[in-house]
């Protein structure tokens, strides 16, 4: 596990031109997803492919439809039009539980942790392991330790401390570990670094990379473009309920991303993909 740590993993066929989804079957595929709230059209036919083992960053301005889109995937509400394909199969996701059962875990901004419970208790909440009628504390602690070790979360003093005593980054890590423990194939993270300081942000970004390395598909929503470029393999720009640009992160840079977010087009980007991805990878 040391060799892969020196380079971004997994190997993405860099410089491939769109259309997306060339690198094997995407675990999640959205086709023509539309959602209206009354007269307001929140999503207007979204097409998106989310490949396993990669971090897909969903960016866009406020009101672009990012939250609506992930809530559609997470089963909070159903789309009005369009089709969701999960592992190649068309699925209807009509409740959060159905999403969880499929293997779609969402880490919301508020993390949904119980501050008064410890890390192990939070990670197993709702899925406790029991021996007979009693909770199998030793078994759960072992499992929690293994998951955290897999994710290389090494910064917690004891996994028996209440989550309320953890830092923001550590709480984020616990929320992610909870999703991983449920064998999620797709983890959606809503603004994972929004409330964090510099060092905590670095920890969380590293955690996201660990997730992808384990073969999990990750969707990250973020306003912070430097975080996005630090972590994402792919970028999808949402504007006014439509995907206006999507592709390997290396084909974007901050300026083109901002262009797409604000105006939906980019004069620079129009040339860049045509040139076969000549724009250098943005760190």
């Amino acid at each position, binding site marked *: 596990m040391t060799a892969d740590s020196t380079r971004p993993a997994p190997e993405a066929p860099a410089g491939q031109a769109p259309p997306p989804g060339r690198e094997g079957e995407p675990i999640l595929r959205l086709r023509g997803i539309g959602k209206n709230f009354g007269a307001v059209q929140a999503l207007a036919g979204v097409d998106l492919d989310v490949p396993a083992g990669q971090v897909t960053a969903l960016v866009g301005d406020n009101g672009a439809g990012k939250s609506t889109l992930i809530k559609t995937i997470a089963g909070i509400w159903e789309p009005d039009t369009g089709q969701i394909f999960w592992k190649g199969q068309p699925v209807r996701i009509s409740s959060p539980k159905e999403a969880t059962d499929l293997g779609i875990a969402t880490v919301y901004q508020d993390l949904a942790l119980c501050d008064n419970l410890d890390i192990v208790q939070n990670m197993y909440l709702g899925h406790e392991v029991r021996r007979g009628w009693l909770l199998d504390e030793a078994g759960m602690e072992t499992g929690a330790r293994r998951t955290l070790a897999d994710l290389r979360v*090494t910064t917690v003093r004891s996994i028996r*401390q209440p989550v309320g005593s953890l830092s923001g980054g550590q709480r984020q890590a616990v929320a992610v570990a909870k999703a991983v423990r449920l064998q999620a194939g797709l983890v959606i993270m809503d603004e994972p670094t929004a409330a964090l300081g510099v060092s905590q942000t670095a920890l969380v970004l590293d955690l996201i990379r660990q997730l992808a390395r384990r073969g999990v598909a990750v969707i990250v929503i973020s306003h912070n473009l430097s975080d996005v470029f630090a972590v994402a393999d792919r970028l999808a720009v949402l504007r006014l309920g439509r995907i206006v640009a999507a592709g390997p992160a290396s084909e974007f840079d901050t300026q083109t991303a901002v262009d797409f977010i604000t105006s939906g087009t980019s004069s620079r980007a129009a040339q860049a993909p045509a040139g076969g991805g000549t724009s250098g990878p943005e760190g």
Partner: protein
Amino acid sequence: MATQRRDAPGLGEAGVIAQPPGVARSGDDLTLAAAEADLLAAPELSGSLAEYARLWLKRVRGGESGMLPVLGGLVLLVVIFQVENSKFLSAGNLTNLLVQAAVFVLLGMAEVFVLLLGEIDLSVGYVAGIGGVIMGELTGYPLSLPWWVGILAGLAATTAIGLLQGTLVTRLHVPSFVVTLGGLLGWEGVMIWLVDRDGNATGGTIRITNDIIYDLVNGNLSPVAGWAALAVVVAAFAALAIMRDRRRRASGLAAPPAGLTIAKIIFVAVAGVALVTVCNLNRGVGLQPLSGIPWIVPIVLALLAGSTFLLGRTRFGRYVYAIGGNAEAARRAGINLSRVRIAAFALTGLLGGAAGIVYASQLGSISIDIPGGTYVLYAVAAAVIGGTSLFGGRGKMVHALLGGLVIAVIYNGMGLLGLGSAAQFMVTALVLVAAATVDALARRNRKTSRAA
């Protein structure tokens, strides 16, 4: 979190899992390395008894004082009363104190279930009254049903009341404060109505004629039986503690050092021996010898152990804490909030009913003059004095035991000093506010230390 130790003795015992690998990306190497060095784990449990003591001290200073304040307050009260009246620590008075504490402890335990959810039950005093009245009517003249029928019927009725109130709170979203405030009024009415129906109740009082029920509180175990019971309890406690440690070690997890476990077992044994010794002293007045542990002591301890087990070792208990901590997180985890909440209210009714039966047994009668309103406040006070939070998620059953003992000590000590209920109410109020203040200060301390 920024002030963690960087030297890490006994790495690998707990907490620390693996050395973090190099950083994958360019860009953040520096910050990430700094973050990891700063937060590099130090194990919480490194094995030695001294290490445990140090960590415990650190936690106390960090605001997690746990039960220390209430234990300190209890000792302080005992010392004050003993100085003022040397009879306070006599065998007769101590045994009496335990008996007096029983109702407060049971009511406090009942209240803990709903307090942990962030709810409250203001009706539990009169619900207790209904339990006592139903038990008294069924076992008294003319029905004279067996003692266990009376107890089961009383408990069933109060549990049903808890279910009803819990359903109103959960399904109809009426605040528990309002539902149970209605209960505080309504169940007193129902209780009076029940007693009025009973032609054999004189002056609103039903006498307890069943000897077994009377002896629940007023009867004693024989001295030998007391020692035998203690031996069983200590052996069971020791076996459970040792088995748990062994299982954790077998799973490769950190277990407390053997010294700590042995110390705990010795502590329980010593406390038990002290209790049994005091209760087995002859406390008879005049020629009539009287000794032995009152039955109510093991009964309350068994209910305490059962409730503690339910909260700490079962999924139901875990969900109660989760809902009290963050109901939305519990809901998203797929927990059926309504079921857990209704069950908690039902358990409050169950333990409240037990308190009412004990109350009737203690007095040898149950009357419509039961101070249900005062008792419900004592119930909340017992839980809060012990350290249970009113906002949910924090608290233990043992808090009700300690808080109930504090209230009983004040009640008993004030009586010994010949001070009336005026002084007793005021002192209880001071203790309650002091307990809440200590908790609030400790929490503020914890918040600031976390923010730093």
